[in-house]
C-alpha cells in the first residue's frame, strides 16, 4: 500500500516561552486528498504546518510519504513538501519574480535548463508568466500571493501546504486562487479560518482547537454541524448554506 502523505502520531509542541501550542495531534492524510485544517486564532494551525517540513520539531512522530521527519531527511522532506506562508512579502526576497521562483530549484541542484523550464511552468500555472522579470514589490497583493505559490510549485512538491491562502485577498484574487489551487493535481493541506474558502477547495475538514484535533470528517458534515462549529468559535458567514454551495 502506498504510504500516507502525512502521518502524525501524538505530536506535542511548546514554544520556548512555554506556550503549549500542540497537545497530542493525530492526523493522517492520504495521497491525493485535499484537507482543510480549520480552527480559531491561536489554535495551533500555523505551528502544526511548520512541523510538516521540519522547521519546528516537537515530541511525537511526523512521517511524510513514509519518510520520518528527522535530521537526515530534512532535505528530502522539504523537496517533497511545499509550504506557502501567509505573508507573501517575506517569501519574495530576490529582485525579480523569476529569480524568486528559481530559488528553490537552484537549491535542489537542478540543471540550468530544467530550472528555466520549471520557472516558466510554475509561473504559467498561476497565470503570472508575463511577470517573470518584474520586481515582486511592485505587484498587487493577490499577484504576490500567486507568485509565492509559484515559488513552491517550481520545486514540484508532492504535498502542497498553504497557510491562510485567502487572507487579505479581494474577491477576484480569491476566486483566481481557488481556481488555480483546485487545478493542481497534488495532495493539499489548507490551513485557514475562512470556512467558505476551505469548502471550495477541500473535501475533508479537520478542526484544530486548543492544540488538538477536535473533529475530522467530510467537509459537508463538519461545516453542516452548526453546534460543532459554534463550540470552536467557528462561524459560517450569514447566508452560506453547505448543500449546493460548491460550484
Amino acid at each position: 500500500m502506498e504510504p500516507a502523505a502525512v502521518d502524525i502520531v501524538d505530536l506535542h509542541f511548546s514554544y520556548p516561552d512555554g506556550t503549549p501550542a500542540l497537545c497530542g495531534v493525530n492526523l493522517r492524510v492520504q495521497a491525493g486528498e485535499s484537507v482543510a485544517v480549520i480552527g480559531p486564532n491561536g489554535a495551533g494551525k500555523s505551528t502544526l504546518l511548520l512541523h510538516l517540513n521540519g522547521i519546528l520539531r516537537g515530541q511525537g512522530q511526523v512521517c511524510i510519504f513514509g519518510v520520518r521527519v528527522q535530521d537526515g531527511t530534512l532535505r528530502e522532506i522539504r523537496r517533497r513538501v511545499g509550504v506557502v506562508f501567509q505573508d507573501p512579502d517575506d517569501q519574495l526576497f530576490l529582485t525579480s519574480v523569476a529569480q524568486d521562483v528559481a530559488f528553490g530549484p537552484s537549491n535542489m541542484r537542478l540543471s540550468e535548463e530544467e530550472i528555466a523550464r520549471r520557472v516558466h511552468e510554475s509561473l504559467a500555472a498561476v497565470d503570472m508568466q508575463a511577470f517573470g522579470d518584474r520586481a515582486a514589490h511592485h505587484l498587487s497583493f493577490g499577484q504576490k500571493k500567486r507568485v509565492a505559490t509559484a515559488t513552491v510549485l517550481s520545486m514540484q512538491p508532492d504535498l502542497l501546504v498553504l497557510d491562510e491562502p485567502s487572507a487579505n485577498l479581494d474577491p477576484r484574487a480569491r476566486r483566481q486562487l481557488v481556481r488555480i489551487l483546485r487545478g493542481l493535481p497534488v495532495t493539499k493541506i489548507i490551513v485557514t479560518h475562512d470556512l467558505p474558502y476551505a469548502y471550495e477547495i477541500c473535501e475533508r475538514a479537520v478542526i484544530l482547537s486548543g492544540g488538538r484535533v477536535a473533529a475530522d470528517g467530510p467537509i459537508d458534515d463538519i461545516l453542516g454541524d452548526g453546534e460543532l462549529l459554534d463550540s470552536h468559535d467557528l462561524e459560517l458567514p450569514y447566508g452560506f448554506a453547505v448543500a449546493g454551495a460548491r460550484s
Partner: protein
Amino acid sequence: MSGSLLTLAMGQYVPGDSAVHRVDPRFKLATSFAYAIGLFLVGGWPGLSLMAIGLAGLFVAGGLPARYVGRGLRPLLVLIAFTFLVQALSLPGKALVTVGPFSITREGLDQGGFLTFRLALLLLSSVVLTATTSPVSLTDALEWFLRPLARVGVPAYEIALMVTIALRYIPTLLREADDLLRAQRARGVDLSVRNPWRLAQGVMPLVVPLFVLSFRHADDLAVAMASRCYHGGRGRTRYRELRAGLRDVVGLGVAAGWLGLALSAGRWWGP
C-alpha cells in the same frame, strides 16, 4: 520622504532592450570602474571631452531620457556648485572679476570647470550603469567578481544574496517606519521638538518596534528560505548564469580603446 529614498535605494533602472542594456553586466561594471579611474588620470580638457563624448554616446545608445542627466546630478548639485566656486575663487592668477576680497581668476575658472565637469561625469557614468542594468544583473556581476575569493573561504554567494536582500527590504522597512511614525503621531508623539532629550524620548518608541519588525522579517525570511531547501551557497545551480558573447567582447574592446584614446589625448593636443 520615502519616495526619494526609494529611488536612491533601488537605483533608477529603466527597463529596456538597447545594446547598452544587453551588454554583460560584468563588462559594464568593469568598464564603469575603469571609467572612474580614467576620469582621475586624464590630464586635460581634450581627454575629458573625449570621455564626455563616450559617455554621451552610451546615454543615447541606452535610450535614456535627457532628464536623467538632471536627475543624476541633482543629489550632488550643491557639492558640484561648491567645488566650482571654491576653485574659481581660490586659485591665484589673472583676476577677471573682483568682489571685495574675492576675485575670480581665469585659472580658477578653468580649474574649477575641469573638476566640476569631472565630478559630473563620474555621477553620470553611475547613472548610465544603474539605469541600464537591473539590480539583479548587478548583484550577479558583483558575485562573479567575488567568486575567486570563494576559494579562500569568502562566502561570495551569501554576500551577493545579502546585498540583494538588503536592497529588497529597504522599501519595506521605510514603509513600516512611516506607518509607525503615523501611529506615534496619532498618540501625540511630537518629533518636531528641539530638545534632544525630548526628541530621543520621541524616537525610542519608533526605533524599538522597528527593530522588532526587522527581526520578525529576518525570522520569517529564514523560515521561507529553509522551506525551499536553502542550505548555503555551495552546490547551488545558478539560474541564468552570466555568459559573455562576441558582442560583449567587442563592446568592451571599443570602450577600452576609447578610454586609452582619452588618456593619451594630452600627448597629441598638448596640455
